[in-house]
């Protein structure tokens, strides 16, 4: 989609492959529906939700947010390097994205194991069902994204990506920023939202 207007030096465009934005848009709408559904269940169970919320490790959650923000930053810089044909900068920036993705996965795994060790499972109560479901689906998104970033990192060694060949990395980057922004909402929703 390219629209050229008189005032702009460069035309308006969506990065990457057009279709990936349908996927991103759909994912955003689906998660919005899930947030609404979570709040509906919370309306019916405020005491349970608050008590369970307090058992979550908000420090870990906050650190997870910083990890994903840093990951997005690294990937955004990688795409910028591609636009400027700075091919030798690309691998380490993409690797930065992948490694921080792995750090998030490790952190979440630790958090889940801690819960299981305390006998807490998705079946324990509606809050924990939502906690495991929302963070679990998000975690699947992170695993997929980290795998894609790893693939891009390997391909970048061979100088595959430059200003003329960046549709795939831009698409992956856009997806990765989606993953980051979903966590930006999920973390306060589950960990920080105090009861009245």
């Amino acid at each position, binding site marked *: 989609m390219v629209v050229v207007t008189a005032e702009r030096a460069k035309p308006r465009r969506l990065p990457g*492959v057009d279709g990936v934005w349908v996927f991103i848009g759909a994912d955003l709408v*689906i998660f919005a529906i899930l947030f609404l559904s979570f709040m509906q269940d919370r309306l019916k169970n405020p005491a349970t939700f608050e008590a369970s919320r307090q058992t979550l490790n908000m420090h870990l959650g906050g650190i997870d947010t910083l990890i994903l923000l840093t990951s997005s930053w690294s990937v955004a810089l990688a795409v910028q390097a591609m636009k400027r044909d700075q091919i030798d900068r690309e691998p380490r920036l993409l690797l930065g994205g992948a490694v921080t993705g792995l750090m998030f996965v490790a952190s979440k795994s630790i958090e889940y194991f801690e819960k299981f060790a305390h006998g807490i499972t998705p*079946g324990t109560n509606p809050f924990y069902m939502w906690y495991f479901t929302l963070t679990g689906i998000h975690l*699947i998104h992170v695993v997929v994204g980290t795998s894609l970033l790893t693939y891009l990192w390997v391909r970048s060694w061979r100088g595959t990506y430059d200003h003329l060949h960046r549709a795939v990395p831009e698409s992956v980057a856009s997806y990765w920023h989606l993953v980051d922004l979903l966590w930006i909402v999920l973390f306060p929703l589950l960990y920080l939202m105090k009861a009245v």
Partner: protein
Amino acid sequence: MTTDADPGTSPAATDARDLWPYPTDYTSWKILAWCGPVFLAAFFCMWGLLARNIPPFSPNATPDEVKAHFLELRLPIMIGMSVCLTMAAFYMAWSVSIAKVMERIEGPGGLWSKVEMMGGTITCAPLMVACAFWLTAAHEAQYLDASVVHMLYWMGWLLIDLAYFVTSFQIAAVSVVFMRDKREKKLVPHAVIWWGWVTFASFFVVSAIPFVTTGPLAFNGVISFWIAFFTWFFWIPSLSFFIFKAVDRIKAEDEAAGRVNA
């Protein structure tokens, strides 16, 4: 089909119909494409509305509650399920029309068009058999122990929900091939292709249904029901719309290349 004469020069060949490998029965092709929306309309109305599956009766219900549900709704469920059992076949017919459009992109020997057709056809099986279980439950509830009715209820849901990967294969095949379309204006646009990927992705979490009876992942929950079913419900008519148009475009391409019946 071999003759001694060179087929290009024999008098019979010049007015011979060039039928292979292109289907020239464009009318049947479009009728089959219509089978998709017809299936959806029948399934939505009969299974969804009449038999009260939008949303489904709670997985958390006790055997007595399930039996009471089937006794109370006996006639609507019997009508809805018997019509669905029959109409499920339209999904198979629809999948053939899609496969033939896919073959125009990957060639008549293409693999993905066959996967699509198989996936679409086998999808009928869990739909038909699950409807048969629920039809039986409604038909027989008055004679059955509540635990047996409960079992039939769950058998239907476990089957219809967990056999999703045949449909996933169908959807993936469609998206993969239509992404490879080299036409300037693709036969099926990006939005529909990527909606297919959204639908594909939405099915996986449904695997949780045996393990939960409440919450978003239960078979009546926001994720396993509302999102998983409605992404698929939206995929069917949106793809169908572009398949109809594709048949017309292909017919025009065939005419321009001199490949139609005289």
